[in-house]
């Protein structure tokens, strides 16, 4: 037994060292920075400021200078935007993904081809699809405005990505287009594990197809479905590239990651930016824990 443990450690050591270098060290350093006033101008010159970046008159939370309330400040807006984006897009992606997966689970001619074709939006790098949609949605020369105007659906061309009231929902739309295939694929894999005899028994008993879906399909794919939703939720809470490329990251559509980038890269506030990124990490972790608790997802067999 002892020698087995030793062997296990031997195999694990390279991985642990690697993780320490590429994950733990940067993370620890970033958390350290968040308690200092470090500026990118001279990283070694940062002074310890305690919790000043987090709370108080210069901080992210409980800031006495936020006269119009927390949710009106840039940080509050970015949290709101991120969650509206994540919730709406994950719900839409799950529903469309589920529909698509049920469709692809049927036997029809050319199924293999359609299954592959559906994956195309997911295979395109986000930057490319964002740029592509940006051109299609352009208010002056975009093909979408042109089609809508010609069809008589809208009277004036709409600045989809610039108008504050449309911009975030445009981003959601593009994200749904892009990520539905991913959800569909995961759900399809789950559907194929459902034993055929359940369906056959239901058919023999003459059960209504909707009832079959609610009573057989959904309960049997529940676990993988919830895991897929957790994946997407965590992913969409970190959203950055789509918003940055599509909307030029104006204050009205900024996400939490965009806020972190703006503080660190554009303003050079490594300390404050690190505090924001640490908060982002904590917020996402908290969300994940709450979601897993509520949905009672089993990530491993022995969990209760």
């Amino acid at each position: 037994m002892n020698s087995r443990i030793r062997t296990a450690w031997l195999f694990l050591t390279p991985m642990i060292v690697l993780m320490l270098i590429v994950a733990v060290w940067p993370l620890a350093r970033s958390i350290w920075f968040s308690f200092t006033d470090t500026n990118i101008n001279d990283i070694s010159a940062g002074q310890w400021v305690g919790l000043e970046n987090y709370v108080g008159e210069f901080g992210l939370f409980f800031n006495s200078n936020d006269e119009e309330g927390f949710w009106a400040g840039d940080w509050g807006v970015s949290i709101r935007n991120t969650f509206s984006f994540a919730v709406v897009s994950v719900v839409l992606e799950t529903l469309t993904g589920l529909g698509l997966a049920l469709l692809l689970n049927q036997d029809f001619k050319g199924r293999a081809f359609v299954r592959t074709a559906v994956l195309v939006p997911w295979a395109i790098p986000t930057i490319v699809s964002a740029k592509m949609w940006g051109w299609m949605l352009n208010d002056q020369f975009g093909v979408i405005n042109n089609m809508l105007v010609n069809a008589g659906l809208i009277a004036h061309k709409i600045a989809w990505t610039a108008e504050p009231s449309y911009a975030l929902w445009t981003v959601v739309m593009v994200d749904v287009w892009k990520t539905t295939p991913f959800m569909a694929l995961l759900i399809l894999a789950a559907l194929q594990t459902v034993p055929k005899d359940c369906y056959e028994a239901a058919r023999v008993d003459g059960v209504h197809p909707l009832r079959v879906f609610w009573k057989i399909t959904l309960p049997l794919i529940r676990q993988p479905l919830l895991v897929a939703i957790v994946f997407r939720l965590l992913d969409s809470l970190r959203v950055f590239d789509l918003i940055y490329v599509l909307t030029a990251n104006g204050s009205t559509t900024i996400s939490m990651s965009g806020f972190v980038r703006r503080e660190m890269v554009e303003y050079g506030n490594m300390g404050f930016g690190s505090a924001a990124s640490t908060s982002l990490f904590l917020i996402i972790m908290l969300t994940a824990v709450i979601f897993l608790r509520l949905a009672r997802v089993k990530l491993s067999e022995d969990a209760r």
Partner: protein
Amino acid sequence: MNLTLFKTLASLLLAVGLCHKSQAVEITITCGPSGSDVEFCLKYANAWATQTGHTIKNFSPPSSSTEKLALYRQLFAAKSGDVDVLQIDTAWPGVLKDHLLDLKPLSNGLENQHFPAIVANNTVDGHLLAMPWYTDAGLLYYRKDLLAKYGLKVPSTWEELTSAAKKVQAGERSKGDNDFHGFVFQGKAYEGLTCNALEWVSGSGGGTIVDAQGQITINNAQAAQALNQAASWIGTITPTGVLNYEEEEARGVFQNANALFMRNWPYAWALLQKDDSLVKGKVGIAKLPGNPSAATLGGWHLGVSKYSKNASIAADLVLYMTSAQVQKARAIGGSFNPTLPALYKDKDITNANDFMSSLSDVFANSVARPTTATGLKYPQVSQSFYNAAHEVMSKRTTGEEAVKKLESRLKQIRRKHW
């Protein structure tokens, strides 16, 4: 035979030795990425290389100046010597002051030939951080033909501009030209709006947001009034779309003969005089209105990185690029405005660009953005200022409210010091 061999060897060795002494080095300069930049920057850098025997490597930065600055700051944070000579925006010396070489000991006093306001902008704590290369300042473009037709003179205050614009716009619209506007400028929420709004505020006696001592001065009645006036233009003498205009959108309206006045940089002049321009020959330029008139200073400069391994050679390239000879060639070929007052009297330049002779007065009376006082935090200060101006113009708040809010926001950005 042996002797000749010896002689050859000796001369070879000598040659190698000599080469070693004046070793040719590679200097990296940020030219580009735009076409005209490559044409009018790299060309002269290569000319210098041919003269001196060194070689030039081009480092092509991102086109957006915000991203350019972010990249420079990352390079400097890593103390990277990859880039020797950098193009520096007028707004940047305060931000980059710790990483640029003081050129004063190497310049032999050449900076005294340039406009003093620009040299002062580039001098932080007594260090000359960049040599002026070309300059820009806000200008008022006006339609000579229309002012004459309505018997108006070129406005010298913002109030005069407003009433003249109203009168001409009403007159032209009554003749069926419904797309005619009185005044266009840069109103999108970006650095350009900081330049525009500073001209209104400063030209109304409202100061420069933050004064030279670092005191926040924006919360005053004149500044609020200037912003309110700008808000009153939107939808009356200025199209609402101006809230999303940069330089080129404004020029598009003016060049299609759809505006009486335009605030823009000098580059627009050459384009307005092209054959396909609808206003060719009908345009005049003047100082911006205001008492005193204030034109925001723009332009680019050349600096040397402190981490350059060949700093003195890089400085030599900077002095060559900013010399009268190169600036003259760039002025004639690319209508880049020289930073040397003497060149505005140069016959060759005024023949090629006759508008330039009238600009030297504007450059001499320009106002700098508060970059030196706010130092590292200027990008945030500017963003808060243009967001405040944008909010007033889109009528989401009043000038008085906005300057009050801006003051408290700037205090937060400053924390204990700039």
